[in-house]
């Protein structure tokens, strides 16, 4: 996976960049299976390596496919990343030992879910039971986010297409559209 990230950084051709991103997502799905997160691995493989890559390729068909050389020196971002990484590594020293069943994170609510999910909800898959029943409100919010994403893309990309067929000065219309709709992006 480190190789994939280095490939993304170094590659100039954007098609190669998107492919490396897909490879990274797929390797991440494999690692998740090793970590016993099978639901998450299936979703990550389907969404990250599947739909994301396809949509990125669809966008690449619409815009240029090569990257211009960097204009600013990358020293300051590199320093920011190193400092942030160092702070995070300093934080991981305090994490509890890996994989023990009596870690604090495994003792709070998880035993209750693991014991009671089967006979309270009738579902053997604890993740589905927690997602749909115990934490159903979060899942409602998540479906609302997907709904907003779909509607947002439809608004941004479908409406102007009709207007482009009708009148000639599309650039002013596109600018007016972009200005009036840029306010809905920060909601995500």
């Amino acid at each position, binding site marked *: 996976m480190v190789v994939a990230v280095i490939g993304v950084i170094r590659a100039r051709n954007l098609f190669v960049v998107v492919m490396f991103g897909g490879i990274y997502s797929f390797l991440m799905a494999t690692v998740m299976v090793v970590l016993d997160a*099978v*639901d998450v691995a*299936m*979703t990550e493989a*389907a*969404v990250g390596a*599947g*739909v994301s890559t*396809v*949509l990125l*390729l*669809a*966008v690449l*068909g*619409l815009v240029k496919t090569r990257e211009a050389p960097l204009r600013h020196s990358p020293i300051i971002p590199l320093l920011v990343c190193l400092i942030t990484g160092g702070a995070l590594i300093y934080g991981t020293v305090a994490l509890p030992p890996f994989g023990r069943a009596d870690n604090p994170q495994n003792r709070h609510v998880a035993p209750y879910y693991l014991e009671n999910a089967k*006979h*309270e*909800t*009738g*579902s*053997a*898959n604890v*993740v*589905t*039971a927690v*997602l*749909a*029943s115990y934490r*159903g*409100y979060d*899942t*409602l919010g998540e*479906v*609302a986010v*997907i*709904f907003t*994403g*779909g*509607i947002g*893309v*439809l608004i*941004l*990309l*479908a409406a102007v*297409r009709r207007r*482009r067929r009708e009148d000639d000065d599309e650039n002013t219309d596109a600018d007016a559209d972009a200005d009036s709709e840029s306010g809905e992006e920060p909601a995500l």
Partner: protein
Amino acid sequence: MMRDTIILRVVVKLLLPAILLFALYVQFHGDYGPGGGFQAGVAAAAAIILYGMIFGISAARTVVPQRVLYMLIPLGVLIFAGTGVAGLLLGANFLDYSPLGSTAEAGQHLGILIVELGVFVTVSSSMLAIFYAFGGRAEDALAEEEPTDDGDRKGEIE
């Protein structure tokens, strides 16, 4: 200008029902194994996207029209919120599925099934609508450059 896409067309025609069947399997077996609404929704959308990539966006639009998608995207959210409100109307808290069945456990099981169905509908129609939006843009961009081209080849993402 037909390239040698005969292999792709045959394979996609064979794979498409298998992918849709797998999506339905994952959706309804979310209780007994890994799966659930999100994985199934993405797989079902991927099946139609694959069809659209090989046979053209207009062919995909004939199978699943845009108007149907406009109705399906909010339908999933409506199913989800409706189940929650149904719990509210029957006397329990919001999103409490216990009063929906004869026992509390049956009610919860039924509630989970309905809710996952709502998630499946919204996720799959949303992904497909996003793909149609991008593909339609590509179609228009190519149509403006070469007005004499036919519609099918533009749908294939190069």
